């Protein structure tokens, strides 16, 4: 039960919210900002000093200052960045990251001998590079202890003046599930002395922690192709302990937050995540619409049902509460084997599953539609009822009360063993026997 409650809570609160900003107003001195963050966690000892013990319950800042290329290696190749910070910070890097010295570092051939073309890093002299040619689209950062928030400065290795880039950070939980995305556009400008762009990632609304993050930089002019980039001073905050209250690094990050600089930043709020994220990906986001419900028609049918003494079967135990969160009319059976009717869904969609006379049935309903263009030569929607199926079921789909529904009868042991499962008359009788139900949220006529 605890699992189900947690899942339902996650569903209601699912919207990961994160914020990031470009140049903190009036303060583009990256080093000072990160020093401020460092100050906030003073005493935790989580700087680059490997001799100090880690206190991962609070957080830390990694400045990449203590990593140097192996003796004899070319400065241009940098030093591989993998698990050097794991012992102290519990932080590992993947995806082919490396550490480079940032200074206008020219060799005898007058070529840049470092992948960091800036005179200075966000702090200190070194920064971490992710090269898409070495490690794929994203830098991978793993945390042995769950973290609640991270922040870093991010810079392209170059670009055209005012060229547009997108920075994106994605958080994953220990199961690999994506729980938060932070993304925004910014225009790069050739200020090699400061790193004005920072990105932070946290789940403001639910406070869920994460154990892995991916960082990407996308070049808008190249159809959002991932390109290589530098980060410096990775700050992280572990899940806060109650006694500590607000985690210090999160507080530091909050200092960086605020209204984004005009034209350069977007604060991502939960409803925008899907579309924005898809915008950043290879293919575009879907256009979704929420349908209007014809509540008058619902009320008329409810009244008629009542007059006839028709009532839906009772959903089993816990699933009844999903009736109450539904903001669309539910279609439920009037007869079902005892305890077999289960209802689940979210405010805009419903699913009911039950068994009757040894056969499984299901109703799926939604008031959320995706707009899609059919293939050329497709017939489009031709009739009020559409039948379709698979090896395992027959489904009738239709519109009712302004929403869209599909009723399925499942084959017992597969279609070959149960030819009746393709019987449309039988399925029609099931549709006809359904009762309309409105829960607490639906009574609010959303």
């Amino acid at each position, binding site marked *: 039960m605890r699992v189900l409650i947690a*899942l339902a809570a996650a569903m209601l609160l699912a919207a990961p919210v994160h914020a990031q900003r470009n140049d903190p107003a009036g303060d583009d001195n990256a080093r000072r900002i990160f020093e401020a963050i460092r100050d906030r966690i003073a005493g935790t000892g989580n700087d680059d000093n490997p001799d100090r013990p880690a206190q991962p319950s609070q957080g830390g800042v990694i400045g990449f200052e203590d990593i140097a290329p192996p003796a004899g290696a070319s400065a*241009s*190749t940098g030093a591989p960045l993998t698990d050097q910070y794991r012992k102290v910070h519990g932080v590992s890097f993947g*995806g082919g990251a490396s550490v480079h010295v940032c200074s206008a570092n020219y060799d005898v051939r007058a070529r*840049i001998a470092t992948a960091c*073309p800036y005179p200075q890093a966000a702090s200190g002299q070194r920064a971490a590079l992710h090269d898409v*040619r*070495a490690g*794929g*689209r994203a830098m991978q950062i793993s945390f042995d202890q769950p973290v609640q928030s991270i922040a870093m400065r991010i810079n392209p*290795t*170059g670009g055209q003046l005012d060229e547009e880039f997108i920075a994106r950070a994605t958080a994953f939980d220990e*199961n*690999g*599930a994506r729980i938060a995305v932070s993304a925004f556009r910014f225009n790069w400008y050739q200020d090699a002395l400061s790193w004005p762009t920072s990105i932070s990632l946290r789940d403001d609304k639910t406070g869920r922690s994460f154990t892995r993050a991916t960082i990407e930089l996308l*070049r808008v002019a190249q159809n959002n192709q991932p*390109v290589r980039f530098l980060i410096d001073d990775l700050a992280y905050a572990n899940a806060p302990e109650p006694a500590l209250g607000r985690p210090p690094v999160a507080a530091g990050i909050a200092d960086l937050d605020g209204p984004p600089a005009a034209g350069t930043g977007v604060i991502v709020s939960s409803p925008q995540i*899907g579309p924005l994220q898809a915008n950043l*990906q*290879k*293919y575009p986001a*879907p256009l979704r619409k929420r349908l209007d419900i014809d509540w008058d028609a619902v009320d*008329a049918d409810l009244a*008629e049902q009542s007059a006839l003494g028709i009532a839906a079967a009772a959903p089993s135990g816990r699933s009844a509460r999903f009736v109450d969160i539904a903001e669309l009319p539910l279609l439920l059976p009037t007869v079902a084997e005892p305890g077999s009717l289960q209802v689940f869904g*979210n405010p805009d*969609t419903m699913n009911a*599953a039950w068994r009757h006379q040894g056969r499984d049935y*299901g109703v*799926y309903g*939604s008031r959320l*539609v*995706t707009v*899609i263009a*059919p*293939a*050329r030569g*497709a*017939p489009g*929607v031709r*009739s009020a*009822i*559409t*039948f*379709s199926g*698979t*090896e*395992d*079921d*027959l489904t009738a789909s239709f519109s009712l*009360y302004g*929403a869209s529904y*599909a009723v399925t009868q499942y084959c017992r*042991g597969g279609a*070959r*063993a149960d030819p009746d499962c*393709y019987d*449309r*008359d039988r399925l029609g009788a099931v*549709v006809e026997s*359904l009762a309309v139900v409105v829960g607490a949220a639906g009574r609010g006529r959303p």
Partner: protein
Amino acid sequence: MTDLRTISAVAAAFALAACGQEGPPRPGDAPAADEPETPAPVEEDTPPADAEDPAPPGSDDAEAPPVSPPPPAGLPAGWDSGPGNLLPGSSTVKESTGVTDPSVIVPEMVFPFAEGPAFANSQLFNPGGFGYASGQWPGPGGAENAAANFDYPWRDNFCEVRLEAKHVTDLCPGGRAHKGQDLRPKTCENAVHWLAAPESGWISHVGSISVNIMGAESGMKYKFLHVQMPVPDWVRTGAPVTQGQPFARVSNLLTASSRATTVHLHFEIHGAAEVDGRLHNGALPPYTSLVESYLDFTDARPGEIAPVAPVAADKCRIPQWP
């Protein structure tokens, strides 16, 4: 039984619709859905795509700083053939085009295999497949374990030819089609490769060879067909699942008692859609959602991108029965 006006109106429409459409297949009919297969001319590999780096500051020629060239990584260029780009000869229309709308139906989902690599291609029209309708749409035959089946590029086959009444769809030429995407796991080994929940949500049905999952966030319904049976005990209607959670293994089951297909997942996304201004409720094209989720998957697991050496053909048929 109700005689409610609205539901009755639906029921009446139901009866009319039932009269006007072909009957469903019966035992003895031609084998259903995904059966034979067909090979497909597979595009030659192209060099891996390297995203061009921006120019360093102060440079006008956009040349990247000279970093030692690392080994190629990531997905090969051209690995994704694009939405609606069916294998030539696998469609009812000469152009072999399907739904080209690139919209990602479910940006929220994660890749439905628990391990990689995986390959979206036709099980009827790739090697080991024998086409459709007794050769009217011929397949290449051959062996299921052919390397081409377990290599890139990916191919959309949502609108691949199917003629049976149960394959009705509003979205594809001719009004009938495959309605899903075939995905092969890393190898043809049967009942080995785990499937993963695309979203947190609930098991909405367990069938004879299928598992359905309803996503709590998107509200979409995911249908997994050709699932090895029996599934783990906890996989039952109403059970909660977590995004990415392995829940069953992929198999070559065509029915509960027949292993007449190849080892592959037939993956469907069901939901409501607006098509040319009218409501559609049923299978939606999953290809671009799979592409995006695979990009995320391979980002996180770059070691699971490259095809592996083919396994012996007999491995594809073990076990013989559930």
